[in-house]
């Protein structure tokens, strides 16, 4: 049970350092988790459908950079028209995702391959746009997403929670959400029931791209800048989070809430290692090992026929 793993981790780290269980540290966890959660929700929609999306690092970086350039183009402050940049970035993310889905579904390239390639295209485009450099945003109003706190948590956490709820609603209350489960559960039957499979696939990837762009904007809010490595590590972390949280890689099982729990598990592990003072250079290795342990503890692997 993923939720029990999460609770056990919190207890574990608190016992090693009581400061772990403090509002300040929880806020830190929430800030780290916010962009990460957006990516995990995006990829969860794809995994439910039985496909995989590996384009998130490119999607996040490119959306973030486009957002920064657009923001600067519209005067460099939110008040001068920088808000248009948010719409532009989100729109771009959705289009980028739709293209990714089109290449996979229409040209019949396995999603593993097509999305991995699109991710590289995204990173490449980012390098090209930035010339390998960094684009900075210096707008106090926009940075309020990080700096302004309500009840101890910065605004960006509330933005993430809002889009978490949107994600849950899409999953549970829309035709798209229902059809994702139909395709992931039995694609042939979905087709035989008249589900527009191609359209649904492209829409799903577009939705994922939208969430990657959200993550990109939140990353800029968090760091005040964008570059080609803005999305680094998110591929491993987001897919790990989905799986640890209980989303089955073969489709139709789990959902957005599972992604949330998985993101919290992974973020708590990351944060906990810092709090208990684990040296930098062994954190990556320990994270990998803990993730394997978390997957073993939180997923029902006996239901899997084979693991490919």
């Amino acid at each position: 049970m993923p939720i029990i793993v999460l609770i056990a981790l919190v207890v574990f780290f608190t016992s090693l350092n009581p400061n772990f269980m403090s509002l300040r540290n929880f806020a830190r966890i929430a800030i780290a988790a916010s962009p990460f959660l957006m990516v995990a929700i995006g990829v969860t929609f794809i995994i439910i459908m039985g496909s995989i999306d590996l384009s998130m690092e490119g999607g996040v970086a490119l959306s973030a950079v486009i957002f920064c350039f657009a923001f600067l183009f519209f005067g460099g402050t939110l008040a001068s028209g920088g808000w248009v940049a948010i719409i532009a970035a989100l729109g771009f993310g959705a289009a980028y995702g739709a293209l990714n889905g089109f290449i996979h579904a229409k040209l019949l390239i396995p999603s593993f391959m097509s999305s991995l390639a699109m991710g590289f295209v995204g990173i490449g485009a980012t390098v090209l746009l930035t010339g390998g450099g960094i684009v900075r945003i210096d707008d106090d109003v926009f940075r309020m997403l990080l700096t302004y706190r309500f009840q101890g948590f910065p605004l960006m956490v509330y933005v993430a929670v809002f889009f978490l709820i949107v994600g849950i609603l899409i999953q549970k209350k829309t035709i798209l959400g229902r059809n994702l489960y139909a395709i992931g559960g039995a694609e042939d039957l979905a087709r035989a029931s008249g589900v527009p499979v191609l359209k649904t696939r492209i829409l799903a990837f577009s939705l994922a791209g939208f969430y990657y762009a959200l993550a990109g904007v939140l990353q800029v809010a968090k760091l005040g800048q964008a570059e080609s490595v803005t999305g680094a590590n998110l591929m491993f972390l987001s897919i790990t989070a989905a799986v640890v949280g209980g989303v089955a890689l073969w489709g139709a099982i789990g959902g957005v809430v599972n992604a949330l729990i998985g993101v919290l598990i992974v973020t708590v592990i990351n944060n906990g290692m810092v709090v208990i003072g684990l040296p930098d250079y062994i954190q990556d290795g320990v994270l990998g090992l803990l993730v394997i342990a978390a997957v073993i503890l939180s997923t029902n692997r006996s239901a899997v026929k084979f693991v490919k």
Partner: protein
Amino acid sequence: MLEFKNVSKEFGPVKALSNINFKVDKGEIVGLVGENGAGKSTLMKIIFGAYQADSGTIFIDGRQTRFTSPRDAMSQGIGMVFQEQSLIGNLSVMENLFLGREQEFRRFGLIDFKKMAEASRAQLAKVGLDIDPTIETSKLSFSQRQLIELAKVLTLEERISGDLVILLDEPTSVLSEDEVGLLFEIVNKLKTRAAFIFVSHRLDEVISLSDRIYVLKDGEVVDEVKGNKAKASNIQASMVGREINTEYYRQDQRLPFDKEAAPLLSVQNASVAKKFEDISFDLHAGQVLCLVGTEGAGREAIVRTLFGMHSLDRGAITFFDKPSLKITSPHAAVSNHIGYMPRERKIEGIFASMNIAENMTSSQLGAYSRYGLLKKADELKLAASWIDKLSIKTPSASTDCIRLSGGNQQKVVLAKWRSTGSRIIMLDHPTRGLDIGAKEDVYTMIREMSAAGIGLIVIPDTFEEAIGLGHNITVVKDGRAVKNFNCMQEQVTPFDLVSAMT
């Protein structure tokens, strides 16, 4: 040498085999015949170890034994030549022959392919094949692959000390006449080394090849005849056996339909390459048309073509008297009120991870949503009304379908298509795997749909079902409609159907 005593096998409430007594002597060729669903494939799977019998005993050379897996059966001398080939196309012939046994050719940790090729040539010679064993298997013709399949089983000869029993599952169904002759020649030559169990739909072949023939029906051996005394007509009679109970199929409720009205569906000279050819028929409102034929005769392809899953090579299909209406995808079929219930309910019929309401609306989400948002209350209301109408046994409308019995799952699928207002519904083996009570429920539903003016195309599970349900029966053989029966005008017997299709 191989003997079954009182072997039974059940799948839930369905008795697949009951008290089977069956034996094969050394050097004997035994035929096994029966209509679809008679239990042939279950019996075969028990013989080669894929299923285990629930009760009864198995003897080899008088010694009691059991087969826990195909591998175990193989080590005791049982080999299976699969109908759907089990060779791996991208491996060479020799790699396929010795798949899983490469250690016999190991030298310093590496495979000695020269030695393997040598051994392969010896095996191929047994079945009269003169080909290079290093060639990639997918490059060979179908009949060559069939012979390699046989050669693979014959490698058992060197591995085990006892005699062999080899199962041949429909080995001739895709071979040309010459190739069949060659296969029979090889089988006859191998009689000194092995006994054969020969399963086929083609009665004449079974009679000419077999020393003895078992006839299966409803999971029982109903007849056992000597090959030289066998007559096709007698075997056919015992294959179909039981009396037709007109009440069982609700025949009294079979209403005449209006032939003068424009047909819901008109198929003219329809052909799809390699699947079927020159199929023509009309389907009227309220008519039940049954398609009868052997597995792979093309019935499923016809139905799937009507549902927009295959595209037509030649001919024309007219729906609802509108020549401009073309159904090119299942999506188009569903939105034009055409429904299709595929055959394997567990794989193709229900979404296992979805509940009853979600399954019922899966083909009509447009009607249960506004601006892309689902109206869940309406979905549950729909499900509740159909649960009531069809007396589906379930705790609630939001119960996962996987928890329902087979019959109730089938009702959910039928409700899905009826509630969309389908005017044409195609049912592929709607009663497969159901117990008798659930079957009756399905028959009642088919009558109700017919009375409501829906046109139905049914691929029935048995001949009796075809005769009991259909207004018309079309017999499909090798992709062609070979015979039409009008059940309202003539008394059709299962015997008529078998003679047309075999």
